[in-house]
């Protein structure tokens, strides 16, 4: 009887002893038992031109920050979205970045790559593995992993990887290879989800400043051998937000468009929605190379969502001679095209605006299908013809030669010109072309605004003759107009103003 009376107390004692023992063992496991996660203190000069740091002045082993597929065991949807994203393919597993990085290393030495690594290769940088003597390492091809972002605890400066990472406070068995202990880890996380959330989510993660930490780049002299140069700037426009009625998620932040809410039963879902971790933007090149139709379609859907527009503003066809130019005694047409950026919260194109291609394509045919005028006609893999109006930032190197590759590899020293569309900016372009005698009316006019991630010339340089699928041409906007005979201007002694405005139809959502 005496023994039976004390049974509950004995069980409680046993549970208490087991708990204390487990906790002590877990503490040992996390600190002393795993010699491969012992952190070494670094000296500040290790980071070179990079603004990235760790909070405690110690390296963080790549294994601690790179366990993304393990996160995917519970956060399956989020993992698969990230897995396809350009955040995953940001490192030496991005052939475009790899080529540029190799070029920078050849010109400026491998130490220079630390400047790029804060945003492209956080694992090798934060773990002290740089400079890399082998590009085929696991960490050098891991990209921006879950914990690379979810352990950022401080932002400093605006851009250039100005952030600090804290080593993750891992639950026991977080890094184990053994399924049994993985189950124990899962259980621990599920028992204390508030700790998991507190460790991995910070209030500033929903702000634009978080993204700007990497999406604004001032190239330092250590890279271009001259004065610092802003080569990417998504920081100065984010606050303006996006006018209502354009994109589906309007919050005025980067995340509002690039991490829209999508349906999911992921454990992180709120009311059945998570923020997409596809980080969709204009990069159609990487999913094309990876044959990832889901990611490619997500990017195309965003680009086709009417974020930039094109319209036929007006057409004038005049008969007779131009009083300013006696040689122009032929019927000629003047076409006005309006392009605008109503829906992008930053300049368009953003990102690597020197190697991206956005351009205006014009086609004019008469009633018998004869082509009267074309501009900017190109298909995937084809160079744009001379005279094409492009939206781009054009840089020159120290010799004044225009760069046709990434600014870092060409050591750009100055911005020669920019034709990017600022948020809400509108611009009217004028095209003039002859209309020969005998042309059959009405004229059919078509204007397109096209997008291609990376120019063919840049791709050719990247792959050095190796065959790859060229990035697709995506149709951002389209307008059509018909110009009848009755609208031809009869006066011949002056340049006709654009008065014959005809109907135009912008049809975003159509694809070539």
């Amino acid at each position, binding site marked *: 009887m005496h023994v039976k009376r004390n049974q509950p107390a004995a069980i409680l004692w046993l549970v208490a002893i087991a708990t204390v023992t487990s906790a002590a063992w877990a503490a040992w496991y996390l600190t002393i038992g795993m010699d491969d996660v012992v952190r070494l203190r670094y000296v500040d000069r290790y980071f070179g031109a990079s603004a990235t740091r760790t909070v405690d002045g110690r390296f963080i082993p790549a294994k601690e920050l790179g366990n993304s*597929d393990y996160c995917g065991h519970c956060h*399956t949807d989020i993992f698969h979205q990230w897995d396809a994203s350009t955040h*995953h393919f940001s490192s*030496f597993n991005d052939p475009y*970045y790899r080529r540029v990085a190799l070029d920078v290393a050849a010109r400026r030495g491998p130490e220079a790559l630390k400047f790029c690594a804060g945003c492209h290769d956080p694992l090798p940088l934060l773990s002290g593995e740089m400079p890399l003597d082998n590009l085929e390492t696991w960490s050098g091809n891991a990209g921006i992993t879950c914990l690379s972002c979810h352990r950022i605890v401080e932002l400093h400066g605006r851009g250039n990887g100005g952030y600090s990472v804290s080593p993750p406070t891992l639950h026991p068995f977080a890094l184990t290879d053994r399924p*049994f202990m993985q189950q124990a880890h899962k259980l621990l996380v599920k028992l204390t989800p508030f700790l998991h959330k507190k460790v991995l989510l910070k209030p500033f993660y929903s702000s634009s400043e978080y993204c700007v930490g990497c999406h604004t780049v001032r190239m330092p002299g250590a890279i271009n051998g001259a004065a610092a140069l802003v080569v990417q700037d998504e920081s100065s426009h984010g606050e303006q937000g996006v006018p209502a009625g354009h994109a589906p998620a309007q919050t005025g932040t980067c995340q509002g468009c690039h991490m829209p809410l999508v349906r999911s039963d992921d454990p992180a879902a709120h009311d059945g929605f998570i923020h997409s971790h596809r980080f969709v933007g204009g990069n159609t090149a990487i999913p094309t*190379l990876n044959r990832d139709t889901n990611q490619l379609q997500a990017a195309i859907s965003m680009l086709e969502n009417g974020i930039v527009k094109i319209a036929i503003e007006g057409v004038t066809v005049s008969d007779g001679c131009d009083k300013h130019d006696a040689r122009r005694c032929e019927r000629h047409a003047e076409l006005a095209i309006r392009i605008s950026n109503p829906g992008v919260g930053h300049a368009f194109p953003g990102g690597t605006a020197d190697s991206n291609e956005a351009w205006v394509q014009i086609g004019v045919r008469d009633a018998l299908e004869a082509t009267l005028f074309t501009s900017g006609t190109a298909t995937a893999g084809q160079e744009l013809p001379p005279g094409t109006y492009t939206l781009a930032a054009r840089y020159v190197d120290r010799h004044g030669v225009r760069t046709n590759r990434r600014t870092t590899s060409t050591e750009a020293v100055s911005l020669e010109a920019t034709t990017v569309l600022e948020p809400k900016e509108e611009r009217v372009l004028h095209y003039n072309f002859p209309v020969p005698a005998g042309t059959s009316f009405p004229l059919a006019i078509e204007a397109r605004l096209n997008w291609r991630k990376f120019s063919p010339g840049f791709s050719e340089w990247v792959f050095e003759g*190796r*065959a790859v699928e060229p990035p697709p041409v995506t149709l951002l906007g389209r307008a059509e107009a018909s110009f009848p005979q009755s609208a031809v201007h009869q006066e011949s002694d002056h340049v006709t103003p654009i008065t014959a405005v005809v109907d135009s139809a912008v049809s975003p959502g159509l694809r070539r």
Partner: protein
Amino acid sequence: MSPRSLLSLILLSAPAYGGNWNVPVEARNLQNPVTVTAGTRQQASKLFTSHCQQCHGPLGAGDGESQKVSYDLRGIVVKLTDGELYWKITHGVGKMPSFAGALTDEERWLVINHLRSLVAAKSGFTHKSQN
């Protein structure tokens, strides 16, 4: 077997965690566009030697020089479609890096052809060449 021995066996003999290898359906059904010829076979062999052999060994048995893996690749390859292999080489997972930057689309398919030839060699069959 005592309970203690059983627990030890479970803990020690459990297979190493193999990563999150769930391949999307679309990727699983991708078709290999590269046909096997004498030329492509040689190219594929070179790619395997330079990118895969150091971990997987010359025949895929897991006896690489720099970092051994704990399984025979040929036993896994035989269970997977070309699309699944392509996806895994592209994305990498667990301890295997992504090869999307090192190998072009075509080169990844070539490596898959080579993996198939390793399986065929092990089982005594040879790949038919198309010239």
